[in-house]
């Protein structure tokens, strides 16, 4: 979230109405900031590597001039959401990266917004050609799609302000707490796996509330239904910025995963083309530039590797 937005400092005990109003105002400021940024910064990939891309277009002529469908779960500010100032458009780092890959290989993208859990089923059903949606490339998911990684995973632990439950990560501190997660997120099995450890320590297992998008997970904490939401650190930072009086990031967690682009399993040529284009985009420094634009830490960048099913 590349927002330099001034957060207003309300009194410690604001009335419900004024809290609500300040939340709305904050959101509006955010929307304006996001809209302004999207237009202010260069987002084109022309600078990438014209010759290299031209060579790739020659090597993969079948993609040139095509319009492919990118399945996204547009509920992840910074990676993919609709553009609040023009809601027919999608914005975010993943969107820019996808456009840059398309630019390099000569195809255009349209977007299909689905729930997180249906990203890969949509790809499998042929209703989409590619998935670039902040999805972690795990071995399990590789059964449904081939992945080309592009970012390392840093998770943040979103909690209510002051971290009343003292949560310090995906560890024993989660025992007896309620975690909000999205259906299909990798954090879900990791939290579930704590059950045995918690039992051994004489504590109750963590409870998981499953939702369909980030907004609902964040609302769950705001409404006091959940104690934590563990997800991509940039998403967590964004939420804290939007509700600075109510939310906080307890800590960051490293997960042994990478974020990957999902492509159909049986289309090696397309996979190779995307892999090559991504390599060029990284080599030219464009990905680093886009990461800066969307305020992702530079150390998150990861060279492309394939994550395939065993």
């Amino acid at each position, binding site marked *: 979230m590349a927002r330099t937005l001034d957060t207003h400092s309300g009194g410690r005990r604001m009335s419900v109405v004024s809290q609500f109003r300040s939340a*709305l105002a904050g959101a509006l400021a955010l929307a304006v900031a996001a809209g302004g940024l999207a237009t202010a910064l260069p987002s084109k990939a022309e600078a990438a590597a014209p010759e290299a891309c031209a060579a790739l277009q020659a090597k993969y002529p079948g993609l040139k001039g095509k319009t492919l469908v990118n399945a996204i779960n547009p509920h992840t500010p910074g990676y993919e959401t609709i553009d609040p100032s023009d*809601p027919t458009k999608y914005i975010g780092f993943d969107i820019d990266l996808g456009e840059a890959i398309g630019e390099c290989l000569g195809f255009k993208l349209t977007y299909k917004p689905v729930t997180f859990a249906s990203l890969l089923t949509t790809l499998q059903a042929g209703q989409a050609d590619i998935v670039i949606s902040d999805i972690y490339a795990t071995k399990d998911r590789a059964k449904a799609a081939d992945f080309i990684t592009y970012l390392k995973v840093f998770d943040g632990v979103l909690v209510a302000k002051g971290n009343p439950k003292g949560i310090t990560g995906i560890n024993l501190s989660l025992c007896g707490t309620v975690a909000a997660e999205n259906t299909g997120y990798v954090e879900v099995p990791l939290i579930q796996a704590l059950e045995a450890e918690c039992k051994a320590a004489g504590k109750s297992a963590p409870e998981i509330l499953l939702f369909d998008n980030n907004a609902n997970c964040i609302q769950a904490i705001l409404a006091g239904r959940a104690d934590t939401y563990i997800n991509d650190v940039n998403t967590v930072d964004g939420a804290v910025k939007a*509700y600075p009086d109510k939310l906080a990031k307890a800590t960051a967690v490293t997960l042994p995963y990478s974020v990957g682009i999902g492509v159909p399993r049986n289309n090696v040529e397309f996979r190779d083309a995307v892999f090559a284009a991504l390599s060029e985009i990284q080599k030219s420094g464009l990905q680093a530039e886009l990461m800066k634009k969307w305020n992702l830490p530079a150390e998150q960048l990861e060279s492309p590797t394939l994550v395939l099913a065993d």
Partner: protein
Amino acid sequence: MDLFLHYLSMPYLFDGVGYTLLITVLGLLGGLAMGVVLAAMQLSRFRGLAVIARGYSIIFRGTPLILQMVFCYNALPLIGIKLSAISAASLALALNEAPFIAEILRANVIGVERGQVSAGQALGMTPSAIMRRIIAPQAIRSMVPALGNEAVSALKNSSLASVVAVQELTLRSTQLASATFDFFSIFFASGLMYLVLTGAIAIIQILVEMLLDLDRPPPREQLRRALRALLPGRPEPSRADGSAVVPQGAGEVDRKAVADPLPPAAPKAAAVTPADREARARRLAGNGFAVEVKGVRKIYGSQTVLDGIDLSVRAGEVVALLGPSGSGKSTLLRCINRLEGWEGGTIRVGGQSLGSDEDGRPRSPRGVAQMRASVGVGMVFQQFNLFGHLTARENIAGPLRWVQGLSRFDSHRQADELLERVGLSHRVGALPRHLSGGQQQRVAIARAVAPGPSVLLLDEPTSALDPELVGEVLEVIRRLAVEEGLAMIISTHQLRFAGEVADRIVFLSGGRIVEEGPAQQMLRAPSHPLTVRFLSSMNAE
């Protein structure tokens, strides 16, 4: 509040409303089309079709719509059917709505009085004509509220299309909320949009109900009244100027028999002397048989209702069926015009069998209906069974057009003549529910004789009437018997009437004919003990 208004007026969300409406309309239309097919299958006389329809209902009513959406979107491509998101969502909604709509249709079809169906059959209407002219118009009126409900529920269910990436209102609201963190104003705005949509459906439902209301004045009068309401400056014209339109069928049920006296009787309807009777009996003896019943047996479950009935009725003869309740009188009449089947024996009307063709093969329901019309066998029911949605005139004129193929003009002329003969020319525009029982039965008799049948069956025509209304109906039947010269079989408890009108009395008990003979003789000197006991108990009342 500003943000709420901002989102309320946002074109992005309005476009979402468009998609919501599109899916809802497609889903409802598809569901209606499939629902009609499913309901028809379930109501069909072919069991296999009903079983298939039932199986479909179990599956698609028993699984969540969200699964059906995902199935249509993500599973159908695996078998080569790749639908767009909107088509997949509309299809899923249609598949899901179909069994619910089918049940609404079926319930309302079944809800139309069975008696009206019997009346339609007896008039020789084919099953499809009965469905189109009698059942559908009444069922459609009564199913409007349930369909309105279903439309509202479909509109709300369309929000589930968000799981298959249809850009409808709910999906757009959640996306917007995710991008702006502006949860509440967005959902209040989209909630209000849904309310406006469902409110519009409610208004449409009320309008349709008003339009279909049979008691409403004609559309032109409605328009005039609406204009008057909008332009209060113009006073309502007074009733005295004669331009006021009397709404169809409005007004109190007319219970005063004096209000609609029968026209004067024809000379030959005057009192009958014993000498006349003998002459008539000799004349009838030379006529051919209008109805021949031979050895008819009918069994309901373990109970034998008709136990070997033999009865022949000559053309122009009037036969009264007497006997205690449950003796089989009604069943015999319903067998004669093939409203019911039987297990053994034969029945011929006008020398023909209604239920089977010359080679003994059973006829289809349509074929039986056509035979009833061509042979000419009419029926009058205990419960009148007038078509509830049609005026007195249309109850008579409608079947003349649909079965006998008369023109609108001719059918109306004939209906008006008949209504005048039964003393109801001032009630031509009245609906059955605004007529007294006696008036209804007189319309029903006029309806039964309108096509000029050769045989008229009357099933306890006065039993459902208040005592003071019995006389007017009996008088109409008495005149018919004298003036029309058609064969009549009347089941009745009116002994005096039977003695006056009938040529012959047949006494039934326990599904058998116990005794029969000339009317006067049967009443004066019955021979069988059962007849004696029955007659004395009737006279004691």
